[in-house]
């Protein structure tokens, strides 16, 4: 005898409820297809449709309201057994909350079956209308409030579902279930039903009440499944930074590099940090830029230290390298009395003027300002690096060899080396 996926317990539904008939059709379809109950997973929603969960002899998972399809998608993507049948059961309320999930399942065309038992009403909570109720379905208290329900079959079809069907509840819908369960990809059956507690009194009124007719549609598409990659270690690919020289720095040096998006500010910050590590120092670097990363300022905060660095914040930096107006606007307020400012010539020409873009908040002027035509030396993408090289050459916190060594690790190392040489020569 064929096994069914329903046990002997009495159906928990009101007399005349379409859910009883729909669930029996599901069980009949499974039995007719000779599928073992342990090859079936039923994902049930909250609401009257989910009350079938205890009656099932297959695998069951009973989740949240509206999320059955999303949960079913996760199971399908996790299971390595394509032969297992996955059925999600929802009412019209759950399908309304989880409409995005339904469209997503259709878009991915994952191999699972969703059955929406649409009785056009929230039966458990007082007979409110749902997003799948029809214009003819009136709440007694608010008959004027009806708006057209979603045509979820059309939505699912347009989103890419392999199979969609709408039918009206009758004695047996098992043939449609079998069709859906044998289809590879996402299949949806909407069964238009009657809730005996609210609304209609005769099942014969369903056709006149519903906004949409029976329908069957298909898409011929590849069945979706996520790609499984081997994955490669995120550490093995990191090239160790060898210590090749010594830095005379004794203590902690806080540096801000500021410019505009697209000027390789973050790369310059990384390079300076790597140079510090090459010379035996500890280094940290964090970036700051607008959410729209392709425009506006770009700031790199770098700390170099003889000792391990714990606190990675910078208030007033020791060194500020500024190569564009965007960068200056962003960091100018952080110039302190001890800050050495290394600025591109175009910004620096206004130094000493009042008011000028490099006027610090205390009006006393930064203690040191160095300018250079770094844009000419390095071009727009190399100006920050040219300024760093110029500064290192001048003060010797780090040997310039450390910067050259750091550049040699970079994919554009040759170009960087040229910029460093030019900056040092200048």
């Amino acid at each position, binding site marked *: 005898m064929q096994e069914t996926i329903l046990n002997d317990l009495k159906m928990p539904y009101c007399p005349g409820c379409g859910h009883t008939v729909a669930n029996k059709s599901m069980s009949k379809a499974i039995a007719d297809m000779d599928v073992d*109950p*342990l090859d079936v*997973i039923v994902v049930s929603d909250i609401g009257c449709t989910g009350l079938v*969960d*205890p009656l099932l*002899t297959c*695998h*069951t*998972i*009973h*989740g*949240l309201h509206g*999320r059955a399809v*999303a*949960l*079913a*998608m*996760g*199971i399908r*993507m*996790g*299971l390595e057994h394509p032969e*297992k049948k996955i059925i999600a059961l929802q009412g019209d309320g759950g399908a309304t909350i989880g409409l*995005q*999930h339904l469209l*997503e399942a259709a878009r991915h065309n994952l191999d699972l079956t969703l059955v929406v038992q649409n009785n056009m009403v929230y039966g458990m909570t007082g007979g409110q209308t749902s997003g799948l109720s029809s214009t003819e379905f009136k709440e007694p208290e608010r008959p004027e409030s009806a708006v057209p329900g979603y045509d979820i079959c059309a939505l699912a079809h347009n989103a890419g579902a392999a199979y969609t069907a709408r039918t009206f509840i009758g004695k047996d819908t098992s043939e449609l279930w079998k069709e859906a369960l044998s289809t590879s990809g996402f299949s949806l059956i909407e069964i238009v039903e009657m809730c005996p507690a609210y609304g209609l009194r005769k099942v014969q009124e369903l056709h006149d009440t519903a906004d949409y007719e029976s329908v069957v549609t298909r898409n011929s598409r590849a069945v979706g499944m996520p*790609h499984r*990659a*081997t*994955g*490669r*270690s*995120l*550490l093995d690919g*990191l090239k*160790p*930074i*060898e*210590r*090749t*020289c*010594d830095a005379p720095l004794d203590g902690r040096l806080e540096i801000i590099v500021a410019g505009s998006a697209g000027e390789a500010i973050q790369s310059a910050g*990384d390079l300076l*940090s*790597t140079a510090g*590590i090459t010379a*035996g120092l*500890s*280094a*940290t*670097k*964090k*970036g*700051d830029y607008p*959410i729209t990363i392709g425009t506006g300022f770009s700031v790199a905060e770098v700390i170099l230290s003889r000792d391990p*660095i*714990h*606190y*990675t*914040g910078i208030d007033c930096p020791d060194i500020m390298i500024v190569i564009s107006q965007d960068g200056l606007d962003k960091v100018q307020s952080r110039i302190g009395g001890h800050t050495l400012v290394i600025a591109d010539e175009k910004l620096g020409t206004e130094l000493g003027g009042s008011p000028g873009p490099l006027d610090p908040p205390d009006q006393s002027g930064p203690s040191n300002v160095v300018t250079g035509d770094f844009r000419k030396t390095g071009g727009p993408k190399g100006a920050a690096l040219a300024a760093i090289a110029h500064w290192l050459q001048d003060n010797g916190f780090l040997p310039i060899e450390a910067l050259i060594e750091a550049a040699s690790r970079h994919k554009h190392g040759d170009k960087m080396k040229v910029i460093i040489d030019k900056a040092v020569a200048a």
Partner: protein
Amino acid sequence: MTADGERMVFLDGSRLIIEAMARAGVGAYIGYPITPVNWLFAGAKQRIPIALEAPDEITALQWSAGFSSSGVFPVTASAFPGFALMIESINMSFMMELPMVIILAQRLGPSTGSATTGGQGDLLLLRGCISGGYSIPVFCPSNLNDCWDMAAASVHTSVNLRTPVVLLTSKEMVMTNQNMNISSLREVQRAERHVFEGNGEYKTYGVNGNLAPPFLPLGNDLHQVRLNSSTHDMEGITQKNSPEALGNTERLKNKIEQRIDDYTFYDHDRAEDADTVILTYGISAEAAREAVGSLRSGGDSVSLLVMKTLLPVPPRIYELLDAYEHIVVVEENISGLLRELLFGNRQDGRVFGVNKIGNMITPQEIAEGVRQCRKPS
């Protein structure tokens, strides 16, 4: 000049978290993009066997639950706005007893706040996110080494207790590059689920005297599995409030709390004769370490306690705090979330807060707090 065996690299916390989780057995990363978890997502795409973009955070958690119930360990990551959407589904996974890790990278709130500014404002949200007040384990890395260790601990604890676990971090931790000798990283063992074996009777939530039930995936060929988000008995059948079902729900509380010693992590840097301890977690811990160094070099004897297991609050933390007259609680918020968690809404003069928002708390501000806490009020 590099020391033998040293492997010095320049990297961020995101990379360490994802790599450690991959080694611990994470099979799927499901994310909805949000700053500041960008680098976690990028790392996962390279490292985790299945890495997917969900269309929203509710879907991310539902997919995660689906993966977990079929035997694949899932991880997701978000910030407060996305985490808020996940909460109902985290409750579902807690009730179904599905292991997974949610990485919550804190940023300045309330609401969408400031996406690229750090913060420590979500601790009490985590304390209260399970309806009924049940705890889920929450780990919090305080530096790069912890990113590795706590990521691995998150996966292992989640598997051992069959529960969602949160790894609480911050923008500053996952988006700052630092040098690190990665040769000193501990080996990460793969976390293996305790699987039901044999052909005897299987009840999905039958524990046989243990705290967490053995696992079988949905779709297995031997036994029916019944996972249930509603109040349920040991079989997984929905019950209103039967004694068996309520007992099962109480077990969810007990399994987390009774095993707390297995996953209590902290750093206690005790100074002899110290009457004051700085208590902190996450990104503020690094500033506190620097503050302790400078205070001690100035002759001030002060201790430091960094919590890495935040929830449920380990009893050991109170035992350690009992030794001090002054407790300076440092956290990047202005409400004092850790203070309230540990000491309630009526705190005595023993507890002093160092708090601010918008920027990391500095070592100087912490040192000043230590000085202030000892002044008679």
